[in-house]
Structure formats: structure tokens, C-alpha cells
């Protein structure tokens, strides 16, 4: 294992379909840490998540991202995933005609192959899937259905977490995994996330509520607005957002900018 931080985002500027969205994001995640990014709608949180995953149309215009010390820009989408980067989608994609179970198997075996491991045999794989499904109260019959097709909002999010548990990522980026969940579902999902927490892994939780953060306590909280991280601190920041909203942070950022100029 290299001594470099798991993830280093340095002065990241990025645009989406030609439109500048991220404007100089700096962020370092060490192994074992859980970071949360909070911010109002449209502040660029999902853009950051997609940039990390390597989505087409999302381009880095300045700065760089190092994953385990290597330049992420050099890796294609699937290589990043196999190397242990996982994106939990804010809006998981429904795919007609592809059964969830066969997709999971393909994904797990792709990750195993990259790690030099043999394919899981069908029995061992099923056993593992069933155990995680039970843990997440994810109805097993859903596994036979097509990926996310006709799943409720809560089922889609559970399915994302199920995938994460199966793939055992070293870096999990979870984009609003808490949205659209009722209290019980939120707890179940949070327990799932918490179970993956370990000294080798890091997590980046993107959310704009502090609900999730009450169950999965972050080590650091960052406030993002207008494509930049305006403020970083400990878990207490989440409470501050809950109480006073983002206006205060945006206000102080503006003051800081004026002072610089």
C-alpha cells in the first residue's frame, strides 16, 4: 500500500458540457476517514462525484486528482471502479432487460479479476448477495428484476448500498444516498455504510441534510457552494447548517473574497 493519501483533489476546475462548474476544489482524504460534503442544490456536489467516476462530458480544465498517488484522469471509468472507487448514484439508472443479479455478478467478478482473484462460483456469490440483501432488508425477489427498473426511491438506494457492500471499495463516494428514504430505511442504509468503515477505506458522503450524518458520523465536514469548498470543519458544522442554513457560509465567503481583492 502506498503512503500517498487515498485521494487528493488539487485546485480542481471542471466544466460540464462546456460550462464551468467547479472552481478550484482542494480536498484530501486519508484512509480510514469519512468526509461529508454539504451544500445547497446546484453547488456542484454531483459534478464532483461524476468527475471522480469519470463520466463523459465532465472535463477537468485545471488542477488534478490523485487516487492512491496516480492521476485519475489517466484511468477510464471501469478502471477506476476496479481499482476500488465506488460512486453511489444520486439517481441510479434503470436498465431494462439486464437482470440485477447477473449485473452484480459481472461487476463483482470484474473487480475480483482486477485484484488478481478468481471468479466467485455461483453458490458463493449467491450466498454473499443474500446475506447483504438480508442485512439491508432488500427483498431477494428484486434481484431477478431488471436493474432499478420500477424500483421505488428507497429500493434504488438500498440497491446502491448492496452493490457497494459487494464491491468492497477503498473509496466510496455516496451522492445523496439518504434522499428519499424514510427513517427506518435511513437507519438500515446508514448501518450498511457504517459496516464498510475501516482503516483501509475512506468515504465521501454527499448530502444536504445532516440526517445521515447523525448515523454515520463524519470526521470532517465541508461546505460547498458555487463550485468551491467554502468552509471545512468537524461534525459540528453539519449541525450549524441544520440550524442556520448555508447563507452564513456564503456570506462569510463573500466577505473573504472582498477582503482578498
Amino acid at each position, binding site marked *: 500500500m502506498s503512503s500517498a493519501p487515498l485521494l487528493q483533489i488539487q485546485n480542481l476546475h471542471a466544466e460540464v458540457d462546456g460550462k464551468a462548474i467547479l472552481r478550484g476544489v482542494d480536498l484530501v482524504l486519508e484512509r480510514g476517514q469519512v468526509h461529508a460534503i454539504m451544500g445547497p442544490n446546484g453547488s456542484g456536489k454531483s459534478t464532483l462525484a461524476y468527475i471522480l*467516476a469519470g463520466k463523459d462530458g465532465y472535463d477537468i480544465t485545471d488542477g488534478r486528482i490523485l487516487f492512491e498517488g496516480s492521476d485519475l484522469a489517466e484511468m477510464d471509468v471501469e478502471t477506476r471502479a476496479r481499482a476500488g472507487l465506488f460512486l453511489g448514484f444520486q439517481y441510479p*439508472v434503470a436498465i431494462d432487460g439486464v437482470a440485477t443479479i447477473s449485473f452484480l455478478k459481472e461487476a463483482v467478478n470484474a473487480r475480483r479479476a482486477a485484484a488478481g482473484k478468481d471468479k466467485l462460483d455461483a453458490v458463493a456469490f449467491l450466498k454473499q448477495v443474500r446475506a447483504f440483501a438480508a442485512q439491508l432488508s432488500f427483498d431477494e425477489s428484486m434481484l431477478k428484476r431488471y436493474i432499478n427498473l420500477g424500483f421505488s426511491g428507497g429500493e434504488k438506494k438500498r440497491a446502491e448500498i448492496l452493490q457497494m457492500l459487494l464491491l468492497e471499495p477503498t473509496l466510496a463516494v455516496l451522492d445523496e444516498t439518504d434522499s428519499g428514504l424514510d427513517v427506518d430505511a435511513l437507519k438500515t442504509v446508514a448501518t450498511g455504510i457504517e459496516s464498510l468503515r475501516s482503516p483501509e477505506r475512506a468515504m465521501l458522503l454527499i448530502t444536504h441534510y445532516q440526517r445521515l450524518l447523525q448515523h454515520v458520523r463524519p470526521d470532517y465536514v465541508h461546505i460547498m457552494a458555487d463550485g468551491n469548498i467554502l468552509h471545512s470543519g468537524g461534525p459540528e458544522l453539519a449541525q450549524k447548517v441544520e440550524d442556520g442554513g448555508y447563507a452564513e457560509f456564503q456570506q462569510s465567503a463573500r466577505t473573504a473574497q472582498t477582503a482578498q481583492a
Partner: protein
Amino acid sequence: MSAQVSNLPQGAHQAVTSLMEAAKRIEAGASTGEETALRRKAREQFAALGLPTRRLEAWRYTDLAGALQGPLPPLSSSGDIQLNEPFKGALGSLDEALENARAQAGGELSASIVFVDGRFSAQHSRLDKLPKTVRLRAGYVPLANEDVGDGDNDMLGSLNLSLASDGFEIIVDPNAGAEAFIHLFFASTHKESCSMHSRANVRLGKGANLKLFETHAGIGDVPCLQTHITDVTLDESAKLEHACVEDNGTQHISLARLKARLKQEAQLSCAALGVGGKLVRREYNVLFEGGGATAKLSALSLANAGETRDINAKLHHKVPDCISDTLVKSVLTDDARGVFQGLVRVEPGATQSNGQQTSKALLLGRGASMNAKPELEIFNDDVECAHGSAVGELDQEALFYLRARGISEGNARQLLINAFLNDVFERIEDDALQLAVESRALNWLEDASVRAREA
């Protein structure tokens, strides 16, 4: 004739000239006066019609004349039959392809009829397990089959009838208990440009069942024109399941027609996979003559650079209470072309008819194109008919989602294309036939040109 021929491009002109000369020879060598008369009539009709131009509705999207690139003399005899030729597909040789097809058909195969370069090969065929209720005549030309459908503009019918050199007939006795399962194998091994023409009659008596598995396999890149017409009659409550895989050489042009008359409560189920060849065109002409009959047609058109797949389905509801259901799915890479023309015609008396036609195409190449024209001609109000067609590309969001889980782009594309094709496979009731069609289609999906994102 000369006027039409002289307007053609040189390659097509040479092709037609060679075909006409052969037709005259065959007519002169006819063994009975009746045959002479039939052959002559067909030849004269072909001469009068010439090659179909794109002004003809049935050929509006497929330029046959443009695809013919020189003389295509029919093979007069097959000479030495060699099946151990290297085969372009995943299989090493044609005899492997034959064995593979037989294996796919499974243990219950009653017969395997092999044609090599258009001629029946007793040597390669296996006819010994045929039940007594099935009468087979292989290696004979069933000349007197009636036409259902194309009427005055029937170039394919007249060309085939004037040139057919071989064929077969299958008659299944009424109420034949056990289901017969017959495999047909058409191998093209020719080394020089040529054409081959065959005909078949399939008659199922009342309540009889038959499964027909037809495979066409060819080698190399030798220009070839193949025509094959199958004339099917299904008596009351008879059931025919037909599946066809066309996996021909790169310069092969295949024009096939299956015409069927369905009596009361008869069931016809056809699946066609066109996967290899410069042009694979398949026509279905189905005539409902007895109430309560059903026809389910499924076609899968898979094509790469320079290739065309053309499905032409005519369903003629003459009597009440019949169901026709056509589904065509096309996956086209590069500059491949796909065509679907469908016509559901419902006569005034054919009340309670149900006719469905759907075409869906996935374009994987910038130059790829699909022409779909499902049509309805309905002459009464008491029907349920619908048609639809859709053309799309691979869903980029879905592709990203799969890749973000570590699935390679090639595999992700394959998964999505397979998902697109899935419902066609599921329509094939018989497991062995489904497996045969599905496995060849999936094998095609592994081609580099299908997996690769276009630059």
C-alpha cells in the same frame, strides 16, 4: 427484356444475362412437358419483370441490382462435396458448423437434410430416424407450388422457379402423434461466383406438429446469389415452428421466402436470424384461410459494415379471429442497413382480427440506417391492429452506470444489446431453437465491431 437489362449497371447486367442463359438451358433439359411449360412461363415472367427497381414498393429500400456485381451462373452439379472448408465464424469448418447445429438441435432430431451449394447431399444427410408419419422427399424440385402473395411483380418467384435445381418436400400425416424435428443445412462452399436456387414444400396434416431448424452457413468472400422458397400449408390445428439462422459468406446474397396458408386454428411460429452475408432478405407471406389461426413472426437482423438485412412480412387476414404478431429487431453497426416492410391486410369479412407489427432498431454506427415501414390495410372496423417502430442508440447513461461498476465498456455494450434482443429470444417457444438462435446472436455480439465504441 433487353430494354430493362440494358438500363442496369454492368455487374447486374452480367448477372441477369448469366441467369437467363441458365434458365434457358434448364428449360431445354426439362424432363416432362409440364416442367418445360412451367419453367418457360417462369423464365418469361422473369425476363419481362427484370430485376426489381426501387420504384417497386417491396424493394424500395434494398437495391438488389446494385448488389449484383457480375455473372452468377447457377451451379450445375455440386461435384466433389467438401465440407471441411475453413469457416469464417467461430467454428473451424462447415462440417463443424453442421455438427454444432445438430448438437444444438439436441437428441430428439428426427432428420438432418443437407444441401451443399444448392444440391442435396445424401452423404451428409441423416434421414434414418424419421418417424413413419413423416414423408420426406429430398433431392427433388417441387415445381408446382402455388404462389401466395407477390402477384404480378414476383421477380423472386419467377427467378427461383425458372432456375431451381433442387429442393425437398416434407409431408406430415394428420394427427401424427410425436413431434417431428427436422434440421436443414445449406452450406455454400463455392470458390467462384455462382448462384443456387432451391424450393421446398412443407405440408402438415390436421393436428400435426413439426419443428424445422434451418441453418445457412457459407465461407469466404465469393459472390453468390441464393434463392430459396418454402411453401407451407398447415391444415386445421397443425403447428409449425420454424427457426432459421443465416450465417453466410461476406459476399453472399440470400433471398428467401416462406409462404404459408393457415387453416383453422393452425399455428405458425417463425424466427429468423440474419447474421452473415452482404444481403439477407427474408419474405414472409402468410395467408389466413381458417378462423382462429395464429402466426408469430420474429426476426433478428444483425449487420456489420457493408451489409443489409431486409425483412418483408405480409399477413393477409382473409377470415375472422386470426392473430398475427410480427417483431423485428435490428442491431446495425458501421454503415449497415436494416429494412422492415410489413403489411397487415384485413379483409371485410375478417372480423375480430388481431395484427401487431413492431420494429425496433439499435444503431451502433454513425452510417447505420434503418427503414421501417409497417402498414395496415383494414377493411372492417372490428379489428385490433397496432404497429410501431423505433430507432435508437445505446443508452449512454446505462453504459456509464455499468462501467462505473467495473464492467468493461465492451461487456457493458454487450449486456445492453443483449437486453435489447432478449424479448425476441423469449418468443421462441422451443428451447433447442431458442438456444440455437440466441447462441449465434450472442456470439455475434462478441465481434470487435459490435463491442467497440465508434471513433
